Structure formats: structure tokens, C-alpha cells
């Protein structure tokens, strides 16, 4: 087990440099180089053909949609799109790789030199924007899936043999590699997480991948090194296959604490790949090789160069939706709210819901209030996403409208939303069925008020002495008697009138 240094302690002495390599499976209908389907969960080896099985004589042909998706990714990440580039073969033997080489891109990636701005909350409640440089975005093909059989654990160690399913082999992957990210200090793990989150959101909004992380369609390798401030960068480790947003943050945190302990002890960091363990958030070294890998890259002779016409690239640029960060900035400005309030909306997953609710006529403050308050609480209780609560923006806008018109007060409005969320129908139907109407009819209110006055003579005396705040007790009694449906403001007016105060 690794020795760890306290996190804040580590950051007081060392500056971290992070780098992230993210692989995402593209959501094309067919594989990168053949017409086999890419659907997840098929019977093993039923989505294979001579090409993706690497049978002797077979040849790859590039999927146009995969190229387009990669170019759109590159554009969304502010990259330059190569005017000419080639695929390359990466040669190494492994039983999950049918040809014993992977078709990838090496020194001629399709997209280079971009950036992505990510927002990270700081400990003092501010939001810091960090620009993550993008080194490259390139295409490659996925490998098959190994199952280890025999032995106790189903893991690779101690297995008697392995079984291979090549359904996944040849599914298009896009690899996005960052430049080294420096100067983030203690925020490094959160920057890593925010970056992967932002990438995921971009890919979803582009429609190039639905990024099902639970199915392994996004895989992240996290590089980290430490050095005392002002010193040259330290030796880095690469933690492989960190496959959830939370794990990205945890693995970086762990490596900071572990490497700091090694360096504190006068040790040196070994350049190595490490494995991340979901159970305890630790990383352990992969078995180190006696010799460095030599992938013997060379241009793939079976595939022709890709030379995107600028006209085509511009067409693709025209298909880009408004990207998440741009949209957020625009909405924040339109609504005129603080960074903090905006982050609350985003963190609640309510951005689209609030936007649509406002479009349906609600005031922005009301829209935020209902989604982040009552509805967020209900969603949390039920353990579902806000969007899956069964309440629509139009319904929330209707409730906000009724509150603004004075037909409902907040208490009643909460009950209406509760009813809508419980499947009792539209807001007006819930109001009718539950009889949730604000009582502002003076006769009805006066009857209740007189009873309350009679029962609260102490309070009456205080009010008449000028202690107007004592009115609360009487108003409360009226509200109680009307089961919350009294218009509290009118009750107050009537009370003061009655007592001539």
C-alpha cells in the first residue's frame, strides 16, 4: 500500500501537471472500416466480418461519418483541421486485436492545436475558468473484448485462459489528447473532472457519441507529475482506464498524494503506467516491461490519405450546434445572474429545464426557484434526475404564472407541483382536485379573523400597544384555520383595520 501525504500538505510543496487522453467510441451505425453494426450487447462474435476479424485478404475502407464526427469534434475544440493526413499502423501483438496492428493516426492527426475552457468552483465560492490546451484529436479503431476464465477472480492474473469477443473490434474511436495543464494547483483533480465532463457534454451536444460511460464508451488515461514550484516538470505516471467522472478526480488526487510522499521521502517517480482501483480509489503500478514498446508506426498502405476540402470543413462547421460553454455564457448574461447562481443551475442539471420554463413565460428567478427548490428536493428523494421527474417546463411556468397573479401562494404552489410530480395531472387539474385556491374573500376571512382575535387576546393587547409584530400570531391562526389557503397579506390588512391600529 502506498504511503500518502495529506492533500493540502502535498499542494503546499508541489505543483501538479496533468494531462488527459480520452478515448470515446463514436456513435456511427457501422464500424470504422467495415459495415458491421456497432450496437452494444449483441451475442459474442455475431457483429463481425472478414474486415473487423482481420481475416487474411480483407481490406479496410474508411467510414465517412467517422471522419465527419472527428472533424466536428476538432472544430468544437477549436482545433486546426489538417489539410492532408494519413492513417498509420501501430504494430503490437495482443489477442484482442485481430490484425495484431491497430489502424490509428500517428504523426499526422486529423485535428491539432485546440483548446477547451472549463469552469471549476474554487474553495472560496468563486468560479475559475481554466483553458485546457488540446494537443490532438485523431481516429482509431477499438479492440475486441477479453473475458478471463478460471482462477478465482475473473481477473487476468491467475486466469487459466481467456475468451475473445470481437464485436467491439473496429468500432470507431476518437482519441483526444490534452497538452500538459499547468498552474491549476489544488484544483487539478477538479480541472481533470471538469474537462472530461465538458468533453462528454460537447460530444453529446454534437451528437457524435451518446457517451455511455457505464458501457465503457468513454475511457480516460490520466497523466500526472509533481514538481516543487519553479522547478522543471517531474516524471509523470499514466493511470489507465479511469472510466467515470468521479474516478478521474479521485485518481488524480491519489497520485498527487502518493507522488508527494515518494518525493518527500527523497525517492524518484518511476515513469510507468498505473491501474486505478474503483473500490478504494488507489492506483497500483502495471508490471513494468523489460524493454520499451516499439510500435513501428508506418503509413497504412491499405488506406488513402484524408485531405479534407476546406469547403467540406466549412459545411461541417455550419452543422455545429451552440456549444455548451457558449450557451451557458449566453444564458447567464440573458438572465443576469451571478456565476454562483449559474453554477447552481448547471450542477442541478437544470439548465435546459430552466431555459425552457422561461421560454414558456416564467420569470427567470421563479423558474430557477421552483426547479432548484421544491422539484430538486423531490428528485433527490426519488433518486432520479430532474429531467426524469415527470414535470414539464410548461407546467412549472403555469404554476409560476398563478403565483405571480396571486392565485397561489408559495405553499400552495409547492402542493400543486407535488401533485403534478405525483402524476395527478396538469397544475389546474391538481388545483381543482385538491381545492387549492387562495381565500381572499373578505367575508370568509373576517369570520376566521374574528375567531382568531377572540382566541388571542394577549396578542391583541400587544398590537394595540403598538407592537405590530405580534400580528403574526393572529395571522398564523387564520392560516391554520383555513388550511393555508388564506391570502396572508389581506388577512394582515383586515386585522389592522379591525383593531384600528
Amino acid at each position, binding site marked *: 500500500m502506498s504511503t500518502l501525504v495529506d492533500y493540502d500538505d502535498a499542494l503546499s510543496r508541489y505543483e501538479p501537471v496533468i494531462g488527459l487522453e480520452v478515448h470515446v467510441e463514436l456513435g456511427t451505425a457501422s464500424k470504422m472500416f467495415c459495415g458491421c453494426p456497432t450496437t452494444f450487447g449483441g451475442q459474442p462474435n455475431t457483429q463481425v466480418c472478414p474486415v473487423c476479424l*482481420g481475416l487474411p485478404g480483407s*481490406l479496410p475502407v474508411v467510414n465517412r461519418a467517422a471522419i465527419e464526427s472527428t472533424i466536428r469534434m476538432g472544430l468544437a475544440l477549436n482545433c486546426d483541421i489538417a489539410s492532408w493526413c494519413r492513417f498509420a499502423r501501430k504494430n503490437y501483438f495482443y*489477442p484482442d486485436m*485481430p490484425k495484431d*496492428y491497430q489502424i490509428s493516426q500517428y504523426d499526422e492527426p486529423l485535428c491539432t492545436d485546440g483548446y477547451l475552457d472549463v469552469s471549476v468552483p474554487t474553495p472560496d465560492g468563486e468560479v475559475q475558468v481554466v483553458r485546457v490546451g488540446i494537443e490532438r484529436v485523431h481516429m482509431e479503431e477499438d479492440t475486441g473484448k477479453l473475458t478471463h476464465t478460471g482462477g478465482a477472480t475473473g481477473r487476468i492474473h491467475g486466469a487459466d485462459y481467456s475468451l475473445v469477443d470481437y464485436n467491439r473490434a473496429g468500432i470507431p474511436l476518437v482519441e483526444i489528447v490534452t497538452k500538459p495543464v499547468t498552474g491549476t494547483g489544488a484544483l487539478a483533480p477538479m480541472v481533470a473532472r471538469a474537462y472530461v465532463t465538458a468533453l462528454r457534454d460537447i460530444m453529446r451536444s454534437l451528437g457524435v457519441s451518446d457517451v455511455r460511460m457505464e458501457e465503457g464508451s468513454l475511457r480516460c488515461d490520466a497523466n500526472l507529475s509533481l514538481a516543487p514550484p519553479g522547478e522543471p516538470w517531474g516524471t509523470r505516471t499514466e493511470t489507465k482506464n479511469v472510466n467515470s467522472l468521479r474516478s478521474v478526480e479521485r485518481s488524480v488526487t491519489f497520485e498527487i498524494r502518493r507522488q508527494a510522499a515518494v518525493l518527500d521521502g527523497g525517492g524518484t517517480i518511476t515513469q510507468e503506467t498505473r491501474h486505478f482501483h474503483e473500490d478504494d480509489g488507489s492506483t497500483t503500478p502495471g508490471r513494468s516491461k523489460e524493454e520499451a514498446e516499439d510500435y*513501428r508506426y508506418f503509413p497504412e498502405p*491499405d488506406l488513402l490519405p484524408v485531405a479534407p476540402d476546406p469547403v467540406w470543413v466549412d459545411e461541417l462547421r455550419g452543422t455545429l450546434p451552440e456549444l455548451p460553454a457558449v450557451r451557458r455564457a449566453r444564458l447567464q448574461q440573458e438572465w443576469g445572474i451571478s456565476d454562483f447562481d449559474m453554477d447552481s443551475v448547471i450542477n442541478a442539471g437544470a439548465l435546459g429545464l430552466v431555459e425552457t420554463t422561461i421560454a414558456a413565460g416564467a420569470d427567470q428567478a421563479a423558474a430557477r426557484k421552483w426547479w432548484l427548490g421544491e422539484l430538486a428536493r423531490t428528485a433527490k428523494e426519488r433518486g432520479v434526475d430532474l429531467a426524469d421527474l415527470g414535470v414539464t417546463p410548461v407546467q412549472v411556468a403555469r404554476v409560476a404564472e398563478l403565483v405571480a397573479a396571486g392565485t397561489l401562494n408559495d405553499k400552495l404552489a409547492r402542493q400543486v407541483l407535488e401533485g403534478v410530480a405525483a402524476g395527478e395531472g396538469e397544475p389546474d387539474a391538481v388545483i381543482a382536485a385538491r381545492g387549492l385556491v387562495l381565500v381572499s374573500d373578505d367575508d370568509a376571512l373576517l369570520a376566521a379573523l374574528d375567531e382568531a382575535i377572540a382566541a388571542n387576546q394577549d396578542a391583541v393587547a400587544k398590537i394595540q400597544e403598538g407592537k405590530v409584530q405580534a400580528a403574526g400570531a393572529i395571522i398564523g391562526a387564520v392560516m391554520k384555520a383555513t388550511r393555508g389557503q388564506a391570502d396572508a397579506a389581506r388577512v394582515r390588512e383586515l386585522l389592522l383595520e379591525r383593531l384600528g391600529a
Partner: protein
Amino acid sequence: MTDIVRMTATQLVEEMAQGNLTSAEITRAHLDRIAEVDQDIHAYLHVDREGALATAAEADAARNTGADLPPLAGVPVAVKDVMTMRGVPTTAGSRILEGWLPPYDATVVASLRRNLMPILGKTNMDEFAMGSSTEYSAYGPTRNPWDTSRIPGGSGGGSAAALAAFEAPLAIGTDTGGSIRQPAAVTGTVGVKPTYGAVSRYGLIALASSLDQAGPCARSVRDAAMLHQAIAGHDPRDSTSLAAPVPDLVAAVREGDVRGMRIGLVTELGGEGYQPGVEQRFREAVDLLADRGAEIVEVSCPNFRYALGAYYLILPSEASSNLAKFDGMRYGLRVDDSDAGVEQVMAQTRAAGFGDEVKRRIMLGTYALSAGYYDAYYGQAQKVRTLVQRDFAAAFADCHVLISPTCPTTAFPLGEKVDDPLAMYLNDIATIPVNLAGNAALSLPVGLAPEDGLPVGLQIMAPHHEDARLYGVAAVLEGALEDTWGQPLIEKVGG
């Protein structure tokens, strides 16, 4: 009537059209011939008697309905064992693929089927097409029908020998550095390497992807043109396949004319190292072309002297990667010690399944691509490739076609070079430049060398996409030679 098996494809087409012969009769005659002579020649690794006869029956039935048939319908053909054929053993001459039954047809095989051409079987070859003598086949060498103590050329010695031994009227070959042309030259047959991309590589078990090209083997220029026409054309499964329509090659044969044509003799492809009898027959053929009205000029392609070196870096590099897939995991041989891990099983399988020459080239290619050597070897070889292309471009700016001897010598004795890889490689010196540049070339028999009585080939080279020029020139020269001889050269085989 001439013996069926000695007829050209052109004659067989005519006999079927006249109703004198059926495809079944023709196919059976060839199967009988194979049964009779192949134990001496060993041109075939696998004979598909049932499959061939089934296609023959299909062709005959189609003819009986009076349907419009493809030109070569019913004419049998042999296929080099480097092409996949669904359910038919395909080994590429290697032990590592022994017993493999591919689940799919190569595009060329599919084209032959679509043309209703009975496929007689799979022909012998150097293992994974590495070699110039067919001696590197894991299943034993093929012998040259002109002299069974001699090699039939390689790697496609099986296809060429099958033609020369009258075991097939037509055959499919593949040419990475001369594997169609050199066997054609040493067996007195015609072999064509089309422009790179003219014939699909889908289903061709790759040796060197940027050099490999399938093409026709035949006993006459016209037969080769017909087969070329049948197998060429765009294939969406091969990214490097040419989209342009296939020119009418049979018309090019019919209309062949060299009058006023400038034909370039490549200075660098001759002289030292070329057998005197080869040079003599070559010069006589050049004189015939001049007689028929061609203007003969000398051209120099100075970078051709580096072609062999570049070729023996590019080829092993690509081959080392292409042959990685033969690892004993998914098909073919597996050598498995019960306790070995996967890496060891792969290494044992490959050591046992590959022959000496294949291992040598895999090691060479692995070296040429490895870190620290890439620029000096593979990178530099790719630059030489550019220079060879430029030499061709300059020469073709001046000449319609270029010519040279196809190879420096006639068929050498079996065993002579089998342990001397460098001597073996030199055989390809005249054929390699075309593969590096990707243009088209044809080998035509131009006589027997006086000193050994063995066939000599002349190579005609044309620019990219100008395959038709090859056939025009070859047809004129073939006609002129046959006028001199009074009969096709092939009639002298075995005599």
C-alpha cells in the same frame, strides 16, 4: 481437332460458341490433364474438381437457354493460392494456414464466378509470395514444364507452370515485384501486372499492400486481355481500387499497331548480369518491333539502380506488419504447450508455421521499421520510390512504352539459389521498378535462349492507366514472332 487442353481460351470460346465443345468437356479434359501430369509438375496445391464441374454445368445450362453470356463463360481458370475462396483450402503456400477454409471469396474469385468460369483449383506459390522460384512453398516446389529440373519462377510458379503444362488455359497471378512476369518469362507464357488498383486486392492475402497487384496469366496476349477485362474494375471494398472504367483491352489487341510509336529501351535494365541468350533474343525482338514501324530509342532511368534496395526495405516492412495476424488465435495453425502463455504460443506458432524466407523478411522489416532506423531505411526507401516514379514520368514523356528483358536469366536449376537470398533477389531487378511506381507491365515470350533452349521474356512497361498500350504492342510483337516461328512458342514445350 487440336487437343482440348492445348487450345487457347480464345479457341475454347469459339468451340463452345460453335457448339463443338461444352464447358463440362473442357473442364473435365483439364482435370484429367491435371491428374495425368501434376504429380511431376506440382502446379496445384488443391484441385476443386466438384466446384469446377458445377460451374461448368452452370455455364453449359446458361448457354443452352440462349442467354447472353460473359465472354469467358465456361473457360476454366486456375487461381493462385493467395486468393481466398469460400470453403476451399487457401494456404498462401504456408504451413501456418494449412487447413484454413476462408468464409469469403476474394473479389477476383467472385468476378470469375460471375463470369461463369470454372475454377480448377489453387496453384502453388512461394510462401506468402516471397520468392522467385516457388521453392519456398511449404508444400514442395513446382517444376518448370520446359525442364523439370528447373524452377518455374516465382512466386506464382504454380499458375505459370499450369499454363505451360496445359493444366489450365488461364490463370490468376499476383505480382508484388515480378511474381506474374518472371514466372511468365521463364515458362514461355504471357503475364500481366496491371496498373496498381486496376484489379481489386480484396481477398488477396497481402504481402506488401502498396506493391501487390493481381493480374492475368495466359498462353496468348489476347487470352490475357480477355481475362484482364474479366477481373478488372472498381471494387468499393478496396480503398486503393481505381474508379475509372476498364478500357477495352481486347480491342487494343485487335487494333495493335506500333507504327510511329516511340519505344524506349531502358539502359539500366540490361548489360552486366544479363545472360547472353536473353540479351540476344531481346535484341531480335526489338528489331522486329522496328521492322513493324516502331521508333526505338534509348532512355535512361538512373534511379532504377536503387530500386532493388528500396524494394527490399519497403516489402519486408509492410510484410512484417501484414503477416502479424498469423498468430494462431483465430484460424490456422496453433502450437500450444499446455503451460505456455499467449505470447509464447504466438511465438511458437509463428516459428513453426513460417518458413525460413518468411521469417527472414519479417525480421528485416521489423528492423527497418523500428525506432531509430525508420528514417534511414523505410523513410529513405520511400523517397527512392518517388525518384523511380520521376524516372518513369520522364521516360514516358518521351516514349509510349518502355521495354527490357523481363529477367536477367532463363529458368535456373532447382536448388541453385535457395540458400542464397541475395542471388534470388537479383532475379527481380528488372521487374521491381514497376511495382514501386505502380504502373503497368507485361511479359511476352520472345524465344528460347540458344545456350540452354529455355524461354526468354520481354517486358513492356506502360504508364499508369495505360494498360491497353501493353496489349497493343504485345499483340504486334507476338504476331511478328509467330510469323517467324510458324507457330506459338508454347508448342515447343516438352519437345
